């Protein structure tokens, strides 16, 4: 498992040179608190995000909860919720580390094959991941939509910066995209 710093070291070592791109790491350090806030925003809303993502996926495809569907009966629905939480957890770890290696090694490696063997439909899984991607962006920016959330609206109340953490939103989205491309 690597983080942003050890990733720089490993790539410098391949050419036996010193780490020269210190500026990028300094930027990582400078935005460290924002990153921790972003991780906290996802971790604090995790169960809500997971259940909404899976519910959204089912709303769009009711066949999943009818007899023969992959979220029927409760046992399989529970497995689905568990898997969505696992994926979200590893994306959170990757966001904390600033590097995708933990997501790749511990979550995505062999996931597609496992799902193929178990008969899990990847299109539905991808849809749930897409919903979580949008939710994560909203929570990192701390501007979840009132129209979608309604009475369940939750805000972290952290200090909102001018760019609304655009780089962190982009980074988190790239990890979700990584999950999507690994599955499809």
């Amino acid at each position, binding site marked *: *498992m690597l983080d942003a*710093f050890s990733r720089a070291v*490993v790539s410098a070592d391949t050419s036996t040179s*010193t780490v020269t791109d210190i500026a990028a790491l300094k930027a990582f350090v400078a935005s460290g608190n924002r990153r921790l806030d972003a991780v*906290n925003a996802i971790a604090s809303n995790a169960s809500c995000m997971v259940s909404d993502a899976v519910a959204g996926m089912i709303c769009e495809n009711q066949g999943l909860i009818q007899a023969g569907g992959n979220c029927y009966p409760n046992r399989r629905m529970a497995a689905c919720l568990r898997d969505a939480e696992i994926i979200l957890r590893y994306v959170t770890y990757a966001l*904390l580390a600033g590097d995708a290696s933990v997501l790749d090694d511990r979550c995505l490696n062999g996931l597609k094959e496992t799902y193929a063997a178990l008969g899990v439909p990847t299109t539905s899984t991808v849809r749930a991941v897409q919903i979580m991607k949008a939710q994560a962006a909203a929570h990192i920016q701390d501007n979840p939509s009132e129209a979608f959330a309604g009475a369940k609206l939750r805000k972290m109340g952290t200090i909102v910066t001018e760019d609304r953490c655009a780089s962190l939103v982009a980074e988190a989205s790239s990890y979700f995209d990584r999950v999507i491309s690994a599955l499809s």
Partner: protein
Amino acid sequence: MKSVVTTVIASADAAGRFPSTSDLESVQGSIQRATARLEAAEKLASNLDAVASEAYNACIKKYPYLNNAGEANSTDTFKSKCARDIKHYLRLIQYSLVVGGTGPLDEWGIAGQREVYRALGLPTAPYVEALSFARNRGCAPRDMSAQALTEYNALLDYAINSLS
């Protein structure tokens, strides 16, 4: 590669939970210290050749017997290899400064070092002398800030201890 962040993630993963507040606190502690470490890494990287050659000269000065025929510093090939080794240690120290732990030194420098030097018949005392010279040569605020120098010296001490 072991660092504060990877250790925190590994233990959170073992428990199957999201990063908790205390996890984030530990990461923040590491990030706070990172400024000084990165300063030391930056300064060391820009002067690596000079630091390495001074350290090399110091150890040959203390152990002139190494220049005798058949000894480790006797031919031009040997000389360049000795200088390269010193530079290698300093590069790993720079990596450790970047990572914020001794992972790179442990994994790429210290693991197997004793066996290699024994197999090649190399004395470790000159390495200790070279690194000790670098250890005592650094000066704050001439070379880097005091906190950065502390981080740098701590890693040199770690390397020295592994060799002695």
